[in-house]
């Protein structure tokens, strides 16, 4: 299958990179009033355009509201004024049709310039395929054998107000996207299920991820740092919990990082093949399975396995979790087309898949007593 890797090494590498970048992570500003000017030439242009339009609007507002205020103060009945009788003036009416039109042209020119600057279709230095699915992002580097899922890392206890919320609450992921600075990075954006929207405010990039179609956007980031954004299109229950985190590194550092990742992912694959022959016992499967279940499956099927009636099916006491094991593995590994059930073959290692399926068949009173091993998963995946 060649697309599977275990998460451990990747996570370690990211923790290291996180630590080295934490210093340059700008603190979110309380009572922030305005757009950020961002870290690309385009985002700066967008910011300038935003300010230009904003000030034009302020001037228009001052003139209109000023005239209104003047009238309400000086032309009020209580001052004993006699109302005038004029009720039309072709000249004035032409003037306030033509003048706004001219102002609009003044706005349209810089807007068109910026829009055309955004439409740069020249060859990129780095391409990343960004795939949205409920409710996580998947990044795949076109020219390197590196791909991974990026899932929100905020603990459920923080969301449930049981733990103190940390500074990047809801804006932190387990594995951020890493890109080089001062190179043109192209994002090819698509989706596995519903429409999502990949948004990084500091790049002025927001593009919808449409299932079955690709969209592209690009950024040339000038400053190394950590940049945070969120999914911007309602995509179902956990739409508010699918952040985007991008780390921009100096090209040399990026090159080292991507090489390291390729190596790690290759090793992980080898290791997995070796582990296929190994059987795990019930305790181990259940421990790993519970952890995987809670991070991956509980969002829909709920921690108690009861699902959300009418929305997401229950696993507790369900036919599929109690009977046909092959079918169960097939559903988890390949997903079910036309439903929210995703394919987990790429998201989890075979060991994790085996563990989580075992867990589902033995938790919450689903006492089948059956064990699923990595080789059973492999059999379904690769038809052996």
């Amino acid at each position, binding site marked *: 299958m060649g697309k599977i890797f275990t998460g451990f090494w990747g996570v370690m590498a990211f923790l290291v990179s996180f630590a080295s970048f934490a210093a340059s992570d700008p603190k*979110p500003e*309380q*009572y*922030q*009033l*305005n*757009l950020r000017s961002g870290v690309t030439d385009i985002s700066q242009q*967008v910011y300038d*355009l935003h300010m230009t339009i*904003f000030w034009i*609007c302020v001037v228009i*507002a001052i003139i209109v509201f000023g005239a*209104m205020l003047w*009238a*309400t103060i000086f*032309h*009020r*009945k209580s001052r004993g*004024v006699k*109302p*005038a*009788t*004029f*009720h*039309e003036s072709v000249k*004035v*009416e032409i003037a*306030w049709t033509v003048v*706004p039109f001219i102002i*609009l042209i003044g*706005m*349209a020119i810089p807007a*068109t310039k910026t*829009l055309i600057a955004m439409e740069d279709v020249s060859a990129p230095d780095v391409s990343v395929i960004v795939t949205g699915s409920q409710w996580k992002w998947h990044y795949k580097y076109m020219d390197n054998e590196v791909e991974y899922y990026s899932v929100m890392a905020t603990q459920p206890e*923080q969301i449930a*107000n049981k733990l103190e919320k940390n500074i990047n*609450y*809801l804006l932190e992921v387990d594995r951020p996207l890493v890109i080089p600075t001062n190179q043109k990075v192209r994002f090819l954006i698509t989706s596995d*299920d*519903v*429409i999502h929207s990949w*948004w990084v405010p500091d790049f002025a990039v*927001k593009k*919808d991820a*449409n*299932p079955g*179609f690709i*969209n592209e956007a690009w950024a040339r980031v000038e400053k190394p740092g950590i940049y945070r954004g*969120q*999914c*911007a*299109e*309602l995509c*179902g229950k956990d*739409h508010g*919990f699918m952040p985007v985190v991008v780390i921009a590194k100096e090209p040399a550092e990026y090159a080292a990082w991507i090489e390291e990742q390729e190596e790690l992912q290759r090793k992980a694959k080898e290791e997995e093949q070796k582990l296929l022959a190994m059987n795990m016992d019930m305790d181990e499967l259940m421990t790993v399975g519970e952890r995987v279940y809670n991070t991956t499956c509980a969002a829909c099927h709920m921690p108690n396995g009861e699902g*959300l*009636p*009418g*929305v997401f099916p229950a696993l507790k006491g369900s036919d599929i979790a109690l009977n046909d094991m092959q079918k169960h593995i097939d559903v988890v590994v390949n997903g079910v087309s036309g439903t929210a059930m995703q394919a987990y073959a790429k998201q989890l290692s075979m060991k994790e898949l085996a563990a989580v399926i075992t867990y589902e068949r033995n938790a919450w009173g689903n006492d089948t007593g059956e064990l699923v091993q990595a080789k059973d998963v492999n059999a379904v995946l690769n038809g052996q």
Partner: protein
Amino acid sequence: MSTVTNDIHHDEHHDHHDHKPSGIKRWLYTTNHKDIGTLYLWFAFIMFLIGGAMAMVIRAELFQPGLQIVDPNFFNQMTTVHGLIMVFGAVMPAFTGLANWMVPLMIGAPDMALPRMNNWSFWILPFAFLILLMSLFMEGGGPAFGWTFYAPLSTTYSNDTTALFVFSVHIMGASSIMGAINVIVTILNMRAPGMTFMKMPLFVWTWLITAFLLIAVMPVLAGAVTMVLTDKFFGTSFFDAAGGGDPVMFQHIFWFFGHPEVYIMILPAFGIVSQIVPTFSRKKLFGYSSMVYATASIALLSFIVWAHHMFTTGMPVGAELFFMFATMLISVPTGVKVFNWVATMWRGAISFEIPMMFSLAFIVLFTIGGLSGLMLAITPVDFQYHDTYFVVAHFHYVLVTGAVFSIMAATYYWLPKWTGKMFDITLAKWHFWCSLISVNLLFFPMHFVGLAGMPRRIPDYALQFADFNKWISLGGFAFGLSQLIFLALLIKACRKKGEPVSAQVWDGAEGLEWEVPSPAPYHTFETPPVVK
């Protein structure tokens, strides 16, 4: 503008043989435009309170970061149903109610042209919303895909109660279409002798144009929900790439309806303000004919700007430029309207009765919403604003402080005509000032959190948005409570408490509706007035 030459006593003469059945039957079987108008208005107000209660749930959840009150799935149902109720249940029926009451009175017609259909178009509405609200209590809950119901979230990935949602929208659509047909036929055929098109009050004009918009786009909405239904339950693939469809096409069809729809919700408001401002400025409306042309051009332009809601879907740059320019162009006729209102006030003799206060607030706050709309039209910056709270701020400024404020202004303006008694002015002042302050506390900071990067339709948010959200929620609760003052005032008014008023009610008021007695008799203009 017009004077009535026949004597009004004729109408009073009819008063004593009004054979209206009493009790519930009167309201169920009524074909009287005034009764139906009253029904529409009360229905809209009840829906406004229900939709508002949902907004309170939303704001309570967003009061502070973390999940406290509702789960994300229910939160999504709240945002969805809040939107549907406010658009189709509150604002649109309120305008239809005002049209029912006022259009025949303003053009000198005895009733609406199609009184039986009028009864129908009202009485199917409660069922539409009953079905929608019922779905919230069924397994899986109600619609949770936003009032815009983008496919495939509303098709493949929705639950089975989507069928109820579709059914409900069909009924709402049928109701609006029947209402619109009635308005058009009434205005085209039932005008009093001498009431030429260019003598019609602006409220009538704006409603005529709105009604044409309604019959043009409500069927398209019906088509869109039908496609959602067949995609979900009958195996078609209009919006599914696997079967050769395209989810982005849904958005094109939806917004082809959706953009004219937003003008459906604001054009009658323009009409109302154009009635009220001249009355209390004691001066004729400035630029009557340019107001009519501006309204018509806004309506026409509304058909070629729909894709400005979809700049981030990935359109070719040529299309983006076209929709940007067309959208910017709409600000010209809209600007003309605002300038005309200001010019009407200019050198008038202004007094500040409650309807005028709401109208002045409308002009200022709607202009703020219009200017943020202009900012949103600029494609490159829209990439930053799109689907953030900046958009939420924009459309609440045009819909709440725009459409809803105009409906309140209209209610205060015509309420004495309906009941024959002046409403409780002290309560009305409380209602106005509480609403004005709280609504700005509610919606103004949304601009800031939107620009700072808070996406819309999220049940929980990052910590840097916490302070503003607290203020927004407080503003929301205050605005919600302020409407209870309005409720108290309306109940009082309906029990006919207060000082009796004259036929003209307001000293600057002109038009046929002010020439029938207050309260307006059950039957009016059975013999048409002659307008000079």
